[in-house]
C-alpha cells in the first residue's frame, strides 16, 4: 500500500480550476439554501405560532413531512421526479453571460426546503423565548406589531436562534455533497471523478475532507464572532462593533464557558 504524497499535496495546494469552480458551487449552494431555508423558517416558524388554526396546521404539516423525508430523496424528487411526471420542472436560467443550470437550482431549492423545516423549529423556539413583558413594554410605548417584531422580538430571539442556526449551516455545507446525485459539479462529485480516473480514492477523499473542514472551520469562527457580538449585553466590556467582537472572540470567545454577569432583574 502506498500513499501518494506528491499527488496528495498537489491536489491539496494546487487544485484544478474545475475543483475551484466546484468549491464555488458548494459554498454558493450552501449559502443560498441557508437563505432560502431561513426565509422558509421565518414563515413556517411564525405560522406555527399563528392565531389561525389552519395556518398552524399547515406549518406543522410542513415540518412533519420535510423532517421525515431524507434530503437525498427530496433532491431526486424535485429534480428528476417532477420532470419524469411531466410536472413543471427546473429550466436553465441565463442571466446575461451567466448560466444557472437546472440541477443547480434544484440543489438550492431542495436543500432550502430541507433546512427550512429545521430552521422553522429553531425560529419558533427563538420567538417563544422572548419574554411577554418585552412585547408588552413595546406595545405600551406605542410600537406597531411589525416594529415590535423587527426591533424587539427578532433581535432578542436571534440570540437563541443563532447558535443552532449556525449548526444547521454547518450541516448544510456537508449536505451539499448530496447534490452530486443530481449531477451538480460540486467538490465531492469532482473528487469522485478524479478518483475514478486516477484510482487515488484515499488521497483525493482526504483532500476533499480537508476542504470541507476548512469551510466548516471558517464558519465556526464566523459563528463565534457573531455570538460574541450578540452576547454584548452580558459582558463587562460589551462588544459594540464587529471589530470589537472579533477582538473579544480571539481573546475569550462567547462559545467558551466564561463567567457572565448575571441579569439582576
Amino acid at each position: 500500500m502506498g500513499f501518494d504524497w506528491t499527488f496528495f499535496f498537489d491536489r491539496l495546494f494546487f487544485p484544478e480550476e474545475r475543483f475551484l469552480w466546484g468549491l464555488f458551487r458548494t459554498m454558493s449552494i450552501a449559502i443560498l439554501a441557508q437563505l432560502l431555508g431561513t426565509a422558509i423558517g421565518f414563515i413556517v416558524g411564525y405560522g406555527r405560532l399563528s392565531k389561525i388554526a389552519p395556518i398552524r396546521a399547515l406549518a406543522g404539516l410542513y415540518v412533519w413531512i420535510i423532517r421525515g423525508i431524507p434530503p437525498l430523496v427530496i433532491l431526486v424528487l424535485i429534480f428528476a421526479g417532477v420532470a419524469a411526471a411531466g410536472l413543471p420542472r427546473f429550466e436553465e436560467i441565463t442571466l446575461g453571460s451567466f448560466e444557472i443550470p437546472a440541477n443547480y437550482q434544484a440543489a438550492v431549492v431542495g436543500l432550502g426546503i430541507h433546512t427550512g423545516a429545521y430552521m422553522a423549529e429553531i425560529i419558533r423556539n427563538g420567538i417563544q423565548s422572548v419574554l411577554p413583558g418585552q412585547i408588552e413594554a413595546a406595545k405600551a410605548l406605542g410600537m406597531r406589531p411589525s416594529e415590535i417584531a423587527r426591533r424587539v422580538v427578532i433581535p432578542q430571539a436571534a440570540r437563541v436562534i443563532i447558535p443552532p442556526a449556525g449548526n444547521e449551516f454547518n450541516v448544510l455545507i456537508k449536505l451539499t455533497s448530496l447534490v452530486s446525485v443530481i449531477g451538480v459539479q460540486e467538490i465531492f462529485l469532482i473528487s469522485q471523478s478524479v478518483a475514478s480516473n486516477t484510482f487515488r480514492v484515499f488521497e483525493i477523499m482526504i483532500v476533499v475532507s480537508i476542504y470541507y473542514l476548512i469551510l466548516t472551520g471558517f464558519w465556526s469562527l464566523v459563528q463565534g464572532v457573531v455570538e460574541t457580538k450578540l452576547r454584548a449585553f452580558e459582558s463587562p466590556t460589551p462588544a459594540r462593533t464587529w471589530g470589537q467582537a472579533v477582538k473579544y472572540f480571539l481573546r475569550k470567545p462567547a462559545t467558551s464557558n466564561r463567567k457572565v454577569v448575571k441579569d439582576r432583574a
Partner: protein
Amino acid sequence: MPNPTVIEAKQLQKWYGDLHVLKGIDLTVAEGEVLCIIGPSGSGKSTFLRCINQLEEYQQGSLTVGGELIGFKEVGGKRVALKESEKTRQRRKLGMVFQGFNLFWHKTVMENMIEAPVLVLGEKEEDARQKAAALLDRVGLAGKEDVFPGKLSGGQQQRAAIARALAMNPEVMLFDEPTSAIDPETTGEVLEVMTELAQSGMTMIVVTHEMGFAKKVGDRAVMMEGGLVKFEAPTSEFFDRDRNPRLDAFLSSME
C-alpha cells in the same frame, strides 16, 4: 372649576374565560390627579390598569381616555373592536411602568430611551437623544446612557423605565406595582422620582402596596377587592381607619 376628566370607567367588566375579574368598575381620574389603587392580590387592580392601555381587553361597560372610547368604536349602534393600528394609536397617550421594568435588555439605556420616540413619534435621533439625556438626568441616571439594563440595580432599571415612558410625552402615566420587584433599599429612589413627577402635574394612576407613598403623594385612593371598588376617598380621608373596618383590616395586613 374642577379639572377636566381624563380617564373614566363606567361599569367596566372583564372576564378571563369563565373568571369574572372586573365586575363593574366605576372610576374617574381628573387631569393632574394622582389616583392610588390598593387592594389584595387577585382584586383586579392590575387588570384594570392593563385594560386602560389595552394590554387586556374588557368585555362590558366603557372606558374612555380624553373622552375617546378605548378599544372599541360604535358602528351603527353596535360596538366593534378596534383594529390593532387604532389600538396602537390610542396607547400613545399613555405611559406604562411595569412591576418587572421590562427594559429592552438587548439595548443600552440610551437606545431604550430613543427607540419609540424615533420610531413612533418620528423624532430626529439627535433631538431624541438630547431629550433622553435630560430625562435621564431628571431621574438621576445621568452617566448611565451606554449601560445595558442588566448591569443596573432594580431601582435604577425602574427609574430608566419611567424615563423611557416619559420620553413619549404621555398625557397619563400608569404604574403597575412599580416597586414590588425592587430591593427595599432602592425603593425610595423610585418613589422619589414618582413624587417629583406627581408634583410636576402629571396625571397618574398608581397600583401600589406603598401606603406611605399613597398617603403622601396620592390625591385620591381606591381600594379594590374581588373585582370591585370597595372604597374610594381623598387620601386624607382614605387612611382614616375608623371609617371602614375592611380597609382597616387590609391596611393592618400591609404593615
